[in-house]
């Protein structure tokens, strides 16, 4: 019972700009974007926790917007700009502000959900660079984490905002509570 045949499913050529680099792939129409990134392009930082659009682990930025790559077909985003967690570093390859904040605030444990949080937060802080603790909690309200209880992820959002303000040389309006100790 071991017939070995090559796949003959019809495929499509697509090109994506992933983390600033033009990438090409030949994929069947049903290939999920998450699988395309992970298995065709080897960018395994994007994780899948449910493959039904609920956990957010697979969140990537498509043309700057956070989207669940497990709910997108790779062919449907042909020609798009994609940012994954691998692309959330600073231009010199060192940890980006959100990544640094997660490390400083102990915003991760197993790290499986983390890429989805980092991409989501990176996009959020671009829209709202100065969130309150309540807004920070709201901003991550669509992602599941089973390890951290979210408290340190909320702190990470606030800390990342602070780092970004520091780096842009703009002291900004200090948001209440920063670093490790978010208080209700």
């Amino acid at each position: 019972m071991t017939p070995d045949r090559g796949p003959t499913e019809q495929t499509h050529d697509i090109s994506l700009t992933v983390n600033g680099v033009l990438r090409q792939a030949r994929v069947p129409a049903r290939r999920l974007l998450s699988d395309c990134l992970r298995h065709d392009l080897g960018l395994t930082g994007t994780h899948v926790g449910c493959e039904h659009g609920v956990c957010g682990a697979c969140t990537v930025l498509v043309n700057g917007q956070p989207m669940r790559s497990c709910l997108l077909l790779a062919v449907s985003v042909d020609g798009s700009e994609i940012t994954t967690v691998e692309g959330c570093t600073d231009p010199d390859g060192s940890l980006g502000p959100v990544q640094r904040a997660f490390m400083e605030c102990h915003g991760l444990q197993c790290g499986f959900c983390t890429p989805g949080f980092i991409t989501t937060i990176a996009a959020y802080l671009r829209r709202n660079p100065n969130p309150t603790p309540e807004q920070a909690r709201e901003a991550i309200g669509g992602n599941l984490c089973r390890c951290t209880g979210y408290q340190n992820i909320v702190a990470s959002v606030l800390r990342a905002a602070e780092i970004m303000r520091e780096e842009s040389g703009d002291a900004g309006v200090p948001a209440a509570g920063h670093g490790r100790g978010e208080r209700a």
Partner: protein
Amino acid sequence: MTTRMIGEPIPRREDPRLVTGQGRYLDDLGAGALQVAFVRSPHAHARIVDIDVTDALDVDGLVAIYTYEDLAAADEAGSSHLSEPLPLLIPHPDLTHPRTAYPLARDEVNHVGEPVVMVVATDRYVAEDVCDRIRVNYEVLPAVVGLDAAIEATHLVHPDIPGNIGAHMVQERGDARAAIAAAPHRLELDLEIERSASMPMEGRGVYARWDADDRTLRVYTSTQAATSVRAAIAAKLAVPIDRVEVIAPDVGGGFGVKVVHPWPEEVLIPWAAMRLGREVKWTEDRREHFISSAHERGQKQKVRVGFDDDGRLLGMEFQVWHDHGAYTPYGLIVPIITTTQVLGPYKPGAYRGEFWSLYTNTVIVTPYRGAGRPQGCFAMERTMDAIADYLGLDRTVVRERNFIQPEEMPYDHGLVFQDGRGLVYDSGNYPALLDKLKALVGWDSFAEYAEQARAEGRRVGIGLACYVEGTGVGPYEGAHVRVETTGEVVVATGLTTQGQGHQTMLAQIVADELGVPVERVTVTTGDTRRFKYAVGTFASRTAVMSGNAAALAARKVRAKALRIASEALEVDPSDLEIVDGVVRVRGVPSSPGAKTEIPLSTVAVLSNPLRYAFDAEAARATQFAVGGSSEEPPVAEDDEPGLEAVDYYSPPRSTFAAGMHAAIVETDPETAEIKVLRYCVVHDCGNLINPRIVEGQIHGGVAQGVGGALYERMVYDSAGQLLNASFMDFLMPYASEVPTVETDHLQTPSPLNPLGVKGAGEAGVIPAAAVFASAISDAEGFAITRMPISPSELFELRERFAAGEIPPLRSRSGHISGEGRFVRAKEDSR
């Protein structure tokens, strides 16, 4: 001075990799591997009539289809043991009717999700296409679903197991029934807890490669017990264990479910890899995780207590009906823990714990973080609240009066714990914990707040719960520590990591013991190539077991380094210290190159006498470079080359951590929505190695506790279909549901181990259901006896309460009791 690392909240060593997407979880490996999907049973209980693969055979990309018959044929042709049931991991004399599954179902399926056919294909999409085309004909049998059906036993899960009873066990100290009968007051409680599950964000997964030339099998699996998986694979596949390597890569959470092994997939995937001579991988999807891994928590309980006028327990009888699902691979661990850890920080008087472990046609039940403790804590804490209410005493007062006192430690309960050892608490200070908790949550001023809230038309309630957690169970763990000639220190321990920061925590310990900067220490866990002897990660045991083993191994290395350095520097070892990776004479200011100091890297070079030089460092250890007496052998008789050591830590018994939680909730008078206003934790896990990591463990545990108390349940219909097997329908808390946790610590060192530490991994989850039941009861004025509780259930309870079907509580925060007295005031002014 090297800064002391133990006790420092340093950032984690593992984070830079994980935050940049450079983690390597199971499905990130094996890019070119063949992929597996399973045909799983759609029925809870059925006989397999036949399996027809005809339609599937011409799917492009299909590589192989396997059923039970193929396993049997393989066993017959070779010496594998795949057609036998999977091992009973933890046998127990009271588990009189154990039953484990076959890797692929033989004639019968006993829960929805049981694997029946394995398909190997070029990719997962194709493998699933093939699965869709395989026809399995079943003869459906009546399903036993839920504890009531199991107890009733109109139908049997396994026809040869009468009454669906896998085990019946009694542990008794004193004559509890007589003590209860003779007590001035008696109460009886019927309680219930529903099923939930570990539900790590990464499911299970296995990836195997067989090197036919080298005749070695390498298996990556998302496990909590790599060394045991290795032993199981070697036994099942009849490969010499020395030819099997098992590696737990980065693991995306475990919480207990991944300690079970070997999962069917953990033997089937390597078997297929050997058979096909190809790399083979299986990654569990979320639905599979719901219906074919493991659940926990489901119990019905009956408590009978007798107590005196002060609320002191005189006797307690605790009966538990435990739903263990279709099979019993993990033995009786969960109900044993429930019926022993129920005792918490209290002296029960005479105690009788009894359980029945019952079969149902549902997913197997094995430990999930807390492992039976949340249920035990729920029973005892509901009882304490009931006694307080009965006597009109403050809930903290009744607890205080029953506490084991610090001067009574070590305290022997006279029972046998889950590790087969005595249930003896090693240390703890429960009165101090309670004082801290009361201060943190503001217990004494709550009545005022509640009255004020009530005046505004709001309902608020406060609750608390206390627990004691046996952590760091044996039998042992070990560690290997080596100083490389670069001065880098590598550490390996056999147990595995699922996000607890072990690499950081163990590096802190070794850095301190050796006197090296923590950045120079690299830790490997869960890789049998690096360390072959281990038990696994469960029962909050890593810091205790591997932590102490690493400390002991590092101490050996330190002693050796001092000895070698003392010869090189010609000083007594007792005059030497190691600071920042340099061995130096105590009290002499550092001056590199002087005869008063020598870097550990050089000591490592000198520890390994060489004939051949491969670099400048090595040249210093070659035969003409080192001096010394030509009468003595270069490696002394009972010495070994290399600056390294292995040591093991094996405790006489568990060490007992403790904690107390309090919550303030608000329940909506109209909608019965339950809102958590505050959540406070005081916690004592002995000496803290990394307070930040411990705090994170507590946060995560509380979040799972909130889920288990207010949201999560496995909803089975009467046919045994799991109706909510997705993240859409199984309500795991998001950030909006989890409260901010306020914490305070007490540190009562364990006298049992060199570091004085106790485990912290499970603590956060244990009391949550009990705390919320206590707080909601306080807000509502009637006792909550069943968890989890949803707003609609609370709404129904209110209606029954209004109809007089549920008795009111007498004492509530900020309430005038039925007899018109303000109950709390009397007892609060201690």
